[in-house]
């Protein structure tokens, strides 16, 4: 993903490993950097990001962790 730093607020993504940081001033350079990488490299990188962040992106995992702290949700 290409994003402003603000655009990933609330996630645990960290630049530059998890996304390519951009601003209105450097968007052309960042796009150039992105298309300079071949697709297999990009696919491997996306897979690695997913593996690192799966737990904080899967709503089921998030809800399970949240409700485990809240007694009324216990069966």
């Amino acid at each position, binding site marked *: *993903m*290409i*994003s*402003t730093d*603000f*655009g*990933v*607020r*609330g*996630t645990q*993504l960290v630049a530059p490993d*998890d*996304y390519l940081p*951009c601003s*209105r001033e450097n*968007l*052309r350079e960042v*796009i*150039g950097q*992105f*298309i300079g990488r071949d*697709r297999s490299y*990009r*696919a491997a990188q*996306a*897979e690695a*990001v*997913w593996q690192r*962040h*799966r737990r*904080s*992106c*899967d*709503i*089921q*995992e*998030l*809800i*399970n*962790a*949240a*409700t485990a*702290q*809240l007694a*009324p*949700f216990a*069966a």
Partner: protein
Amino acid sequence: MKKIVLVSGNRLAPAATGGQVRSVGIARALARNGHCVHIFSTAGRKEDYQGDNVRRGVLETEIEPRLKESTHLGLTYGVLQSVGRRLDYPRVWQYNLLARGWVPGRLKQALQQADIVLSDLPYCPPIPGPWRNKPWYLISHNLEHKLLEQGGPRQKRFAGWMRGIESTATQTYTDIFSCAEEDQAFFKQHDARARLKLPLVRCGVDPGLYVLPPDMRRQMRAQLGFTEADEVLIFSGSGFGPNVEALREIEEFCRAEADFLTRNHVFLLVVGTVSRTPRREGPLVVTGPVAQILPYFAASDAGLNMITRGSGSTSNCSSIWRRACR
């Protein structure tokens, strides 16, 4: 297994905005844990107010096992919603109706039967009645008063009011599902006795929904006029102000860098209600509202997010979604 009622101001499914993706995702996750989840929405979408729906006064939707949504289509809520949107007023009217207990009879029945109640956004306050002592949780999607502070004059006018509501939410609710560190810290600051757990439920998605047929990428690219060699960057969003500003940035960029983008076969694909009008201008392709957004993710090579203001969290983590769409 618990009976859970999720009170929402407008119809949540199928999700059309990031907030709705999160709310429906939460409801779905609870249902998959064995709970019976009933989303009760006090107003519908524009297209809901027609024919038999209006005569029946409600739209019932079975979303999946143990998860259903009832959308109330009464005219009071519908007209107030429509007028409020046109005048760009926040849903203060909705807050006042619910806080006074002026709610549909069907919602009262659902609350009577519920074990747990969830309020989607602070615009859905606890409703007075015999159900008020049941565990009642707030689903926070961001700090609403921060959004109002960044809005137009009519929005700004209510920022202080909403700040008051959010400041006292720690006493109003059994607990609060925060969406990010920002709102969690705010609620913690106002929880003087450290009574609440304030669990963090980020803007996650259901990865299972992002597994698409293998041919979808090729089909969508063909439909959109992209070749396999083209590089497609996608931006999706609702008509929310910061999204519209980001679209303007993208439009300006496409105009200024048209030669660079064309030379490198790069297209910027903008999807969703962030723009009402489909159009194509060189490297910029704008679809307008779409029935389903996932095929467009499948067609893209990366997400592009130019948002620079707002509050809370984002569900626009396209690169992660893309992984599942491959």
